């Protein structure tokens, strides 16, 4: 260091900071002394011990759910060449990640039936918000129709993103089957947002009616969906989707809700209005196949205030996990997991019905609503005391409704145990009532 200072012709490092006005210059921060690696690891471990993981306490929470991540996926994502790189601005040094992104786009398009996908938004909530802004750029009409039963966090994010251009978010009611009404008549609509499966877990098979509504309102159709569901159910392209969004949880852990991967795919005719980064195939100077980012003139670093979005850093590494997960499982493995999810969810729902829960909607994938015979909050509280975490209470939508999420990781034993404990609680409750 002395050598470097001498080279600069200065005596101390302090001289390098002389541009900072003296009245605001400080000498260090009020933080604890530096710690050794081992100390830091122990300190953090100790704090995290206070958490209960899925393995300490099984839960049935929806929206994002615990899924098994094959060891190979973790190894692939752990390659330092991937995770310590940045956005591939120099394609010759980044062919690996570029090809992986190209393959990710391909898999997402295969699953969703769309033509193009970007390499991620922050999560499904911001993906939805960006999709609505994109629809507005294309249709230039002020309204977006959304089902009144979308997850409240998502709604809040959407409202924030909608403020800038002054989009009006119109909530459409839910029918007795738990599906969004499709007979809405509304002027000035840029996009209709439909979830399939929706927030209540319900599968929507009204393909014809959805398309009719889209045509009637001359609006774009944004579909929020689930990648695992798409391995056994028809893709949104079959019912007229223009943009498809979703949570790309394949191969990615829960991590207390982040980072997540916002899937974003659309039809090719709209690609120039798409937010985010896109990778394309091309050739190098010798005519050999190569990959690079493309259509960058949509992006903030070139277009600035006229960009399609402000997004720069995204969730690229999670795209690699997503891709690696689909590769390790393959078509057969993915479908097997999807069927297992569905079977488990049906089993759990049936068992709950047997002990007195009501199932308002029958067609579901791996999330479903069950109405608790006693106050949902009370049930979940007592269940927690017995070491099991219940589902998500959705009182705002359905009184004592609980949204359950079930995956391949919920063994029969886990489900039986949970049902048994809920049964005990209900019986105790009955006793006291008597």
């Amino acid at each position, binding site marked *: 260091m002395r050598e470097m200072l001498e080279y600069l012709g200065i005596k101390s490092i302090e001289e390098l900071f002389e541009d900072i*006005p003296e009245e605001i210059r400080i000498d260090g921060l009020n933080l604890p002394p530096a710690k050794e690696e081992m100390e830091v690891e122990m300190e953090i471990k100790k704090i995290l011990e206070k958490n209960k993981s899925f393995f300490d306490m099984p839960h049935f929470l929806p929206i994002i759910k615990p899924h098994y991540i094959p060891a190979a996926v973790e190894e692939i994502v752990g390659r330092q060449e991937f995770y310590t790189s940045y956005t591939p601005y120099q394609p010759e040094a980044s062919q690996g990640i570029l090809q992986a992104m190209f393959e990710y786009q391909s898999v997402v398009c295969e699953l969703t039936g769309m033509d193009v996908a970007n390499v991620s938004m922050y999560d499904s909530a911001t993906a939805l918000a960006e999709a609505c802004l994109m629809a507005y750029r294309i249709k230039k009409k002020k309204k977006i129709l959304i089902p009144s039963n979308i997850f409240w966090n998502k709604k809040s994010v959407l409202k924030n993103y909608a403020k800038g251009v002054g989009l009006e978010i119109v909530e459409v009611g839910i029918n007795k089957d738990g599906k969004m009404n499709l007979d809405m008549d509304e002027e000035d609509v840029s996009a209709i947002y439909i979830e399939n499966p929706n927030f209540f877990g319900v599968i929507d098979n009204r393909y014809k009616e959805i398309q009719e509504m889209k045509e009637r309102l001359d609006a774009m159709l944004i579909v929020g969906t689930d990648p695992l569901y798409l391995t056994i159910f028809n893709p949104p392209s079959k019912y007229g989707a223009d943009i498809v969004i979703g949570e790309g949880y394949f191969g990615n852990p829960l991590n207390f809700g982040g980072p997540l991967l916002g899937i974003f795919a659309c039809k090719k005719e709209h690609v120039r209005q798409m937010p985010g980064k896109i990778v394309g195939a091309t050739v190098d100077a010798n005519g050999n196949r190569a990959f690079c980012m493309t259509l960058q003139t949509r992006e903030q670093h070139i277009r600035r205030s006229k960009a399609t979005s402000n997004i720069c850093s995204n969730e690229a590494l999670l795209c690699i996990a997503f891709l690696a997960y689909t590769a390790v499982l393959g078509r057969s493995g993915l479908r097997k997991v999807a069927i297992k999810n569905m079977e488990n969810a049906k089993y759990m729902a049936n068992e709950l019905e047997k002990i007195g829960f009501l199932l308002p909607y029958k067609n579901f994938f791996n999330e479903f609503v069950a109405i608790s015979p006693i106050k949902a909050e009370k049930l979940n509280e007592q269940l927690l005391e017995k070491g099991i975490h219940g589902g998500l209470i959705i009182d705002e939508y359905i009184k004592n409704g609980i949204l359950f999420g079930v995956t391949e990781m919920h063994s029969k034993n886990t489900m039986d145990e949970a049902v048994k404990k809920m049964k005990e609680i209900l019986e105790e409750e009955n006793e006291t009532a008597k």
Partner: protein
Amino acid sequence: MKLLNEIEEIKEDFVPEVERKELNIPNLTEREVVKHFLHLSQMNYGVDTGFYPLGSCTMKYNPKLLERVAKNEKVSFVHPLQDESTVQGCLEIMHKLERALCEITGMDAFSLQPCAGAHGELTGMLIAKAYFEEKGEERSQVIIPDSAHGTNPASAKMAGFEVIEIPSKEGKVDLKALKHALSNETAAFMLTNPNTLGIFENEILEIAKEVRKAGALLYYDGANLNAILGKARPGDMGFDIVHVNLHKTFATPHGGGGPGAGPVGVKSYLEKFLPIPRVIEKDGKYYFHYDEPSSIGMVSHFYGNFAVLLKAYAYILMKGKELKSVAEKAVLNANYLMEKLRKAGYHVPFYGRRMHEFVLSLANLREKGVRAIDVAKRLLDYGFHPPTIYFPLIVDEAFMIEPTEDESKETLDEFAEAMEKILHENVDLLKKAPHTMPVGRVNEALAIKQLILTWKEL
């Protein structure tokens, strides 16, 4: 495999029109998959591969402990909607990180929810909007210097503001131009300090005074916070809102483009506008606090990129008080390398002291037909990742170099040596570079023209 409508438990859901018949995803063995991805990784350059002086991106070394602490099952298998009593560890980390960020930046309160720098900017702009709405003032403009990151104008625009760009003077904010642009229409002035040229805006106190006088807010783009850790704090400079990039300043890996994290900090009078939920502590227990009617609401699906937050917290614990040595070493490295390159014959516009990064102009190479991109590509042949090129926009043929604190003098010397050699190399050699990478110069124009975006189209 059985047909879906033959499986007893689920068959009722498979009316004919919904069942998927085709799914074109290959069935491979694990061995084939691992081989494929390992091969891909070998065609990728990361910080762990070598010197990565990508200006503005702060490609510092990512200590391996950070990866390990985030692999804990008590993170990876913890659900964001679990009861508070079962996620005390996560909440404690978040709360402690918020407190540490307040100390580091001189702000009063933080939200960890934004998932990236640009996301933090948008959040900050929404906070500014809410603030003026509550005051009943209609302010529609955000002022931004022409040297700013592209995300600044894009974020301001997304929040619904009109963007007013002001020209720089000698590589810094032109105070006169700023005064001229400020009015009762101004909601905020967005500034990076040190700025994108690596120059500390030494008139910052006057700038803050003028912005305040106009009744506007001063926004700090924390992309370059690394340079002043423990040396100065945006909060003390008069900034009202800041975002920090944990993936830059606090060593969490960039992941090939993400995930990052862009927490937003504010002064106390703006605290009530921060996204909900906030994490609060009471008698050693932690809670989510939702009841804040002035809050802008949520900006992401849950509470931000928790795994990234955790890694940044581990980094802060590792460095502690020594964080200031991060800034010292980063600034020393940048100034040393700048001098070396200047002596090698490169031009430094607005020459003078720099903080953590500096920008060369390669415009004088144009006469022999060489452009910044050619030098960048040729650097690859010497085993270095090129710097950021063609940014900031106010420098012709910009070559933006940020060595970070983690590189040794030997590495900087090797890089300078390579740069010097390139200066005297055959033009043709440069124009056709790189010569040693898995692919030659990539035709980016063709990619736009033919627009092949999936394997189906190949």
